């Protein structure tokens, strides 16, 4: 017969009103979780497209490279540099790369492409490009064959075992030219990569650019996002001029900005929604209080401290909020769970626009715990704010007037 039981029973005195209020919280939570899950899912797929398929979490460059990405701002990987990187405990893999641009031609068609010279074994540990092979085979050490993105192959009207001609400028202006057979065709989840990438075995690539033993970058993988700050700190401590260390978000500021702006938009919408729900709960609580003035007066008259009375109404508010959260989760978990495993494929015309923009035409959902616990925190804050009203009311209630009500 303590306050919690009284609060719980009070809740069901007007079942319909309570259920309607709970339902409003339910819809709010359902909408917010599904929307947040979709947002966060698409952000992580965007980040994955960049980080896991291409840039890695961290890169080490020659310090001038980022400002001026030419084959001349390359470096030779010294043993001490490699040592320093391998000693950072958050680092799980890293791989050398030589990246530059070239003109790729088939018989009649020419297109600018991004050339990546990679160590086949290490690259596969870092970005796992092996698994995106759609046709043909992956690269071997010393391989003369190349891998091309599927859309690039289509554009150049080339297929497996056809020859591609590459033209570019090599190290210190030496002209670079070569003919390479297509060993494999890559189909990434990222349309942008499919359209413009061409992978070569590292020494093959160094030959092509006459950049012997030189790299543009060392691409470093850590386990996940959360290990990134520590790894960055240690690497920055250890590695300095003439090298520079950059994290993916420094290398992709536009992506970070875009995500942040989109997330802010979501937060605004959810705040608006929760505000409406909050006022709904407040209305219900106000009605409950005004209906119960007399019995509240009786309770204080016979010896209940006012703050305890306030607690009862606070619990009632809390119950409404958390019942809503609970049923909201019961509703949203199956939805999110389903779409997490089966991302939504966008209809053809929308998909085309997204591919144009270099974005995968799939709507991913996130299963991050924060999608859920953020709702719990939000509802708790709202109920705590709403509870100010009943607590104030029970503090200022005039018992003699309440008894005459």
């Amino acid at each position: 017969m303590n306050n919690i039981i009284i609060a719980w029973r009070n809740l069901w005195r007007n079942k319909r009103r309570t259920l309607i209020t709970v339902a409003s919280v339910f819809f709010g939570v359902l909408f917010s979780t599904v929307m947040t899950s979709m947002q966060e899912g698409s952000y992580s797929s965007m980040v994955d497209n960049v980080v896991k398929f291409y840039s890695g979490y961290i890169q080490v460059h020659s310090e001038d490279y980022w400002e001026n990405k030419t084959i001349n701002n390359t470096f030779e990987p010294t043993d001490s540099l490699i040592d320093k990187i391998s000693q950072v405990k958050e680092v799980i893999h890293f791989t050398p790369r030589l990246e530059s641009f070239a003109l790729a031609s088939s018989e009649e068609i020419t297109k600018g492409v991004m050339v990546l010279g990679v160590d086949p074994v290490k690259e596969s540990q870092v970005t796992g490009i092996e698994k995106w092979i759609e046709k043909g085979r992956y690269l071997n050490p010393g391989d003369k064959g190349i891998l091309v993105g599927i859309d690039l192959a289509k554009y150049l009207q080339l297929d497996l075992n056809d020859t591609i001609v590459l033209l570019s400028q090599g190290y210190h202006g030496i002209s670079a030219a070569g003919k390479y057979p297509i060993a494999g065709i890559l189909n990434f989840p990222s349309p942008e990569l499919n359209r413009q990438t061409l992978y070569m075995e590292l020494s093959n690539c160094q030959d092509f650019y006459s950049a012997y033993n030189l790299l543009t970058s060392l691409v470093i993988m850590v386990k996940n996002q959360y290990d990134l700050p520590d790894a960055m700190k240690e690497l920055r401590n250890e590695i300095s001029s003439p090298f520079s260390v950059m994290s993916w978000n420094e290398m992709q500021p536009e992506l970070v900005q875009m995500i942040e702006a989109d997330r802010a938009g979501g937060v605004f919408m959810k705040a608006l929604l929760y505000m409406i729900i909050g006022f709904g709960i407040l209305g219900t609580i106000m009605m409950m209080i005004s209906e119960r003035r007399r019995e509240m007066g009786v309770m204080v008259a016979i010896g209940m401290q006012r703050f305890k009375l306030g607690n009862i109404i606070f619990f009632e508010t809390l119950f409404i909020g958390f019942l809503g959260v609970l049923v909201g989760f019961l509703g949203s978990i199956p939805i999110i769970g389903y779409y997490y495993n089966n991302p939504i494929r966008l209809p053809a015309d929308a998909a085309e626009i997204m591919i144009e923009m270099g974005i995968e035409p799939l709507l991913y959902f996130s299963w991050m715990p924060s999608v859920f616990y953020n709702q719990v925190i939000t509802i708790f804050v709202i109920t705590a704010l709403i509870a100010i009203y009943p607590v104030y009311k029970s503090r200022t209630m005039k018992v003699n007037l309440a008894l005459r009500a």
Partner: protein
Amino acid sequence: MPVRQDWKVYRNVRTLNKSNKMSIIEINNLTKIYDGSEVEVIAVNGIDLSFDKGEFAAIVGPSGSGKTTFLNLLGGLDRPTSGEVIVDGVNIWNLKSRKLIDFRMNNIGFVFQSYNLIPVLTAKENVEFVMHLQGRPKAERYKRTRELMESVGLADRLNSRPAKLSGGQQQRVAVARALASKPKFILADEPTANLDSKSTENLLDIMENLNKDENITFIFSTHDARVVKKARRVITIEDGKVVWDEKR
């Protein structure tokens, strides 16, 4: 400051002197003025009274004469404009708000005209409620609740919610609840006003028996002649003043 202290000493001496007569309530020059928006109402106008342990007293007067206001001032529910209420030597209106609530909990039982009970609690839980607030142990609560429900003749309605009880039964539960905290006295503001004559008689009998058998002090207001007949002291109020105070 010295003046106030003198007062305290004086008061203590006075209550000490009267304690052999077992006076438990002393009311001195009690006044309540309501500042209405247009006229001010003197609801209680300079009442001096004292009550002894074991009294069975009726406050009588027409509607609007100030009975409810008087009982509220006496019970610590409405702050007097001036004057004092001293219960067992404690000037209750000098207590801080929280202390006053605790004082009511431990010393005063209340029965109101109607809708006394907490609707979401059963009869038994309503009776236990104050003992809960007092932090009484479970075994004691259990035993006392059953004894009290027995003494108001509702041993078979322990688990009924108020809505399932008649008006008379509700008032009997309210009496049981008022007694649960072992108060020094019980204030009942027109407890029979909403009852039919049979329930009125029944409730009065219960109150009378509790008064006789257990020496429980009852102060109740009424304007019902049949209720007045049962009282052993009748205090008549008109326009906030005591016009007649008769013991019999």
